[in-house]
């Protein structure tokens, strides 16, 4: 239903107004002007409608018409999404590049996933079957890692009156026909879904398992949950993007949707060049086989930047409905908020805090609420975890995007400039970060890893907190004045910071670490502190207790103990015991003499 209506009367950057467009609906997708630029209706008013345009409006003229499509801004969901890279409204960048230029051409129109490519579809229903929303009618092996399940769209059910033979088809091919009271429905290999509406589910499940990332400070101290949300705020240069990349590479989600929202072009290129070379530790296959990239870099049109996070989450919901665990990285949600602000400014809306529109908090909450562990239509369990980077202006966490995000996320990983200056990476501040999922996840940790895992976590955090307080004193009077037991806390904290919290993304034994190894490392550090503290209490001077060789060995165990030789930790513990038992007996005697 495409009709040519209206007349453009106002153009200001991405904002265009048309008159004589009476039947336009709110949030409807339209094609603007002769170049048929893609746009979305954002307000309707008697005879005048306002449209935000997802492409550059340079060259647009007053008086040109628009085409109404009758449907909201939607994405095509079907095979061909995984391994692909799209712009903010699901147009494949690879196809644009293949047209022969390294630059994004003008007026590309509404292209989307490949309509020609043949997929081997296995049809799993037969004529006469009664199927309803969410039921699987065919399967396609989309990549070596992902089996794509074609599901009956949420609003349809009926009796199968036609089922195509299994075979190779393109996505436009009709696989089955359903009949119900309303009539006949043809189901192809894709469905359309409006990006701004969440896909319906049967119910939400409680959170039970962590999203394991292989990053020590996250997994052991501030865990993410499958179906949970997290924010990573940090000023520039604190390592948001590299943290997001690490999560995309190593987390144990089935599918990663990585959205570059108004960020650097080179970062997306880096992902495109690096990911195919990295193998997933679980499957041994390239992680690109389970990755979807959405890139709307900072110099691409601002309205498409605003849409990109919705495109990403809609794709994630579609795969979640198949029963997969999805992790979404949005880098950075601040750029999305700025896109909102920019468009709001052009609409001359009343600004709230720092020029952001008053609806910023509700939009943020709506987005993060699309995360969750659910039972999808059709009865499959799947989850979406959202991890949003936040780029606070001036690194100041009191600004509106950080504050409003903080209210709606479960895990908060605060990046710290001073840690980054000291090249302590990941620069996650252990005093300002938190995870709201500890209680939900504690049964999982106790059962799957070790009963004492969370106890060790609490002990380490206490030590670090203690150290922070002591450092205040040290800054004033120096370390030498402290009593030995407090100096020991400083020394052990240093081991935790350098040997545990710092993690080298470029070291083959350190880029990602299993929870088993994390637990064993914590045990070693804990034993070191307990034993050393005993010695200090017996009066052994700190110079003896802080054995350089042993401390060095423990600080570097992250590099030297590989995942297949975890028993080496037992040797370390033996070494600790023998050293301090020796000291104890030596000084014990002195005391008794």
């Amino acid at each position, binding site marked *: 239903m495409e009709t040519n209506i209206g007349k453009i009367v106002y153009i200001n950057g991405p904002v265009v107004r048309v008159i004589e467009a009476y039947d336009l609906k709110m949030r409807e997708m339209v094609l603007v002007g002769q170049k048929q630029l893609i746009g979305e209706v954002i307000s309707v008013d008697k005879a005048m409608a306002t449209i935000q345009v997802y492409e550059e409006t340079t060259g647009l003229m007053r008086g040109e018409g628009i085409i109404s499509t009758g449907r909201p801004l939607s994405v095509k969901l079907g095979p061909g999404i995984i391994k692909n890279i799209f712009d903010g409204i699901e147009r494949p960048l690879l196809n644009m590049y293949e047209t022969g230029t390294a630059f994004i051409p003008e007026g590309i129109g509404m292209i989307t996933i490949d309509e020609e490519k043949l997929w081997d579809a296995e049809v799993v229903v037969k004529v006469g079957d009664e199927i309803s929303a969410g039921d699987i009618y065919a399967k396609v092996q989309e990549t070596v890692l992902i089996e794509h399940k074609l599901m009956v769209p949420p609003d349809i059910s009926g009796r199968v009156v036609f089922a195509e033979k299994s075979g190779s088809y393109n996505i436009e091919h009709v696989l089955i026909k359903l009949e119900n009271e309303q009539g006949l429905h043809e189901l192809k290999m894709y469905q359309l879904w409006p990006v701004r509406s969440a896909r319906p589910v049967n119910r939400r499940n409680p959170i039970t398992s962590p999203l394991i990332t292989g990053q020590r400070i996250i997994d052991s101290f501030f865990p993410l949950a499958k179906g949970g949300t997290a924010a990573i705020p940090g000023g520039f240069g604190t390592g948001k993007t590299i943290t997001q990349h690490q999560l995309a590479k190593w987390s144990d989600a089935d599918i990663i949707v990585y959205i570059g929202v108004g960020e650097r072009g080179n970062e997306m*290129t880096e992902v495109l060049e690096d990911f195919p070379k990295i193998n997933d530790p679980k499957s041994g296959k390239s992680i690109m086989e389970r990755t979807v990239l959405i890139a709307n870099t900072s110099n691409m049109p601002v309205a498409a930047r605003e849409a990109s996070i919705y495109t990403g989450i809609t794709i994630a919901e579609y795969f979640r409905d198949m029963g997969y665990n999805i992790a979404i990285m949005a880098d950075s949600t601040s750029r999305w908020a700025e896109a909102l602000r920019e468009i709001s400014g052009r609409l001359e809306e009343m600004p709230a805090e720092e020029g952001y529109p008053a609806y910023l908090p509700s939009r943020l909450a709506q987005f993060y609420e699309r995360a969750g562990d659910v039972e999808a239509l059709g009865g499959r369990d799947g989850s979406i975890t959202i991890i949003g980077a936040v780029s606070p202006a001036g690194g100041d966490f009191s600004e509106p995007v950080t504050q409003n995000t903080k209210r709606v996320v479960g895990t908060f990983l605060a990046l710290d400039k001073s840690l980054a200056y000291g090249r302590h990476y990941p620069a996650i501040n252990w005093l300002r970060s938190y995870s709201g999922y500890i209680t939900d996840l504690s049964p999982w940790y106790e059962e799957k890893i070790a009963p004492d895992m969370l106890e060790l976590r609490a002990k380490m955090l206490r030590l670090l907190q203690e150290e922070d307080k002591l450092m205040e004193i040290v800054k004033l009077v*120096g370390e030498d004045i402290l009593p030995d037991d407090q100096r020991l806390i400083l020394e052990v904290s240093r081991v935790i910071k350098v040997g545990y919290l710092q993690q080298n993304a470029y070291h083959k034994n350190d880029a990602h670490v299993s929870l088993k190894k994390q637990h064993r490392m914590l045990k070693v550090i804990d034993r070191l502190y307990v034993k050393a503290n005993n010695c200090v209490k017996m009066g052994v001077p700190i110079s003896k207790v802080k054995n350089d060789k042993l401390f060095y060995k423990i600080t570097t165990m992250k590099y030297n103990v590989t995942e297949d030789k975890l028993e080496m930790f037992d040797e370390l513990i033996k070494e600790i015991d023998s050293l301090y038992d020796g000291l104890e007996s030596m000084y014990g005697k002195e005391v008794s003499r």
Partner: protein
Amino acid sequence: MRLKYLKLYKVEGPLIILSGVKGAMFGEVVDIEVEEGGHKRGKVVQIDGDKVIIQVYEGTAGISLNNTSVSFTGKPMEIPLSRDILGRTFNGVGEPIDGAGFYGDRKYDINGRPINPVGRKYPRNYIETGISSIDGLATLVRGQKLPLFSGDGLPHNELAVQIIKQARISGDEENNFAVVFAAMGIKHDEADFFRKHFELSGVSNRVVMYINLADDPIVERISTPRCALTAAEHLAFAHNMHILVIMTNMTSYSEALRELSASREEVPSRKGYPGYLYSDLASLYERAGMIKDSKGSITQIPILTMPNDDITHPVPDLTGFITEGQIILSRDLHQRTIYPPINVLPSLSRLQKESIGEGFTREDHPDVANQVFSAYSHVQDVRSLAQVIGEDDISEMDKKYMEFGRQFEQKFLNQGFESNRSMQDTLNIMWELLTLLPRSELDRVKPELLDKYYDKR
């Protein structure tokens, strides 16, 4: 034949408003004829009903409602380009101002097109600047955008000139290197300083200049970097050259943008800057890089002065979020007559990780740089402690760090305007400094590298 509009509706600041216009295009260039023969150019920035708002490049002085006629060209702002621009000087709208004419083979839209991330090549080769603190700790990479964050009165111009004089691109056998220089709102003497040094060092015929001085019209200040970057793209991608673009001063540029935004009565965001400042800056900075179809590259060094040395000011802040790192100059080091006064701790090159180390500079480079950072960062803590309790009372180890800090600043940072150090020299100085500390303190360096480089000293 296009229509000529003989009457204006309104003139306001740098804007003129026309009414009764039928066929205006958003973003097109208009030709404005003031009285007899005085031509100016403008750009359509808003269409509202039959009213069209035009931003005038050369300024609106002399324009009245009745003495001016406007004709629409139907084209975006374009400049002619060819390889012959090398050695020439242009103004902010791409007209030659060195006394000779210029005719290019083709005209190019100054707004460019965004580079498709799929079409980019990831930058993986360093540029040796001969400046230790940059080469050693924040290595400049070919295709990178690495800004200089400076303050008024700090020697950022000297540093930029020194980089231009000394820059050597590793692997550039054909010496296919040129500089595009965009000056936005800088003073006459600053422009002369650059010009003089380009001549002295014999690079003038490899430099293209686009100049908009502090007293030139501000609308041209907006187009200056766009002209310069279009020229850079032409040289890099059509002629396979390696281009270093120096853009100075981004703060003046942003202020011009704010001035225009205010005159259009737009809703302001932080500190009165328009809400689209981020997108606008990104449309400049993102034009750095390399593409798959060409051997050339565009490396950008934008220079900006932080108002009141405040790094959280919107201009440095937004710049830092777009660029791939930053080099920060410090007033404190400058006052202690250390040149270049680069504050290495907050300075960073995001792309260096893929461009240094084995196969590029030397295998020890990443570790030794990391260690020097960590040690110098500790020096700051020790210094603040020593200020409280006095240097005599700090521990023996901390005294070693104090000495490390002093020598680091004197031997490593302070190298002077004329000194051009090789990468090997820079790395060796770093090891020499680390020998001031005991081996057990060097926890960022792999043991085998310590054996090789630390123990033999």
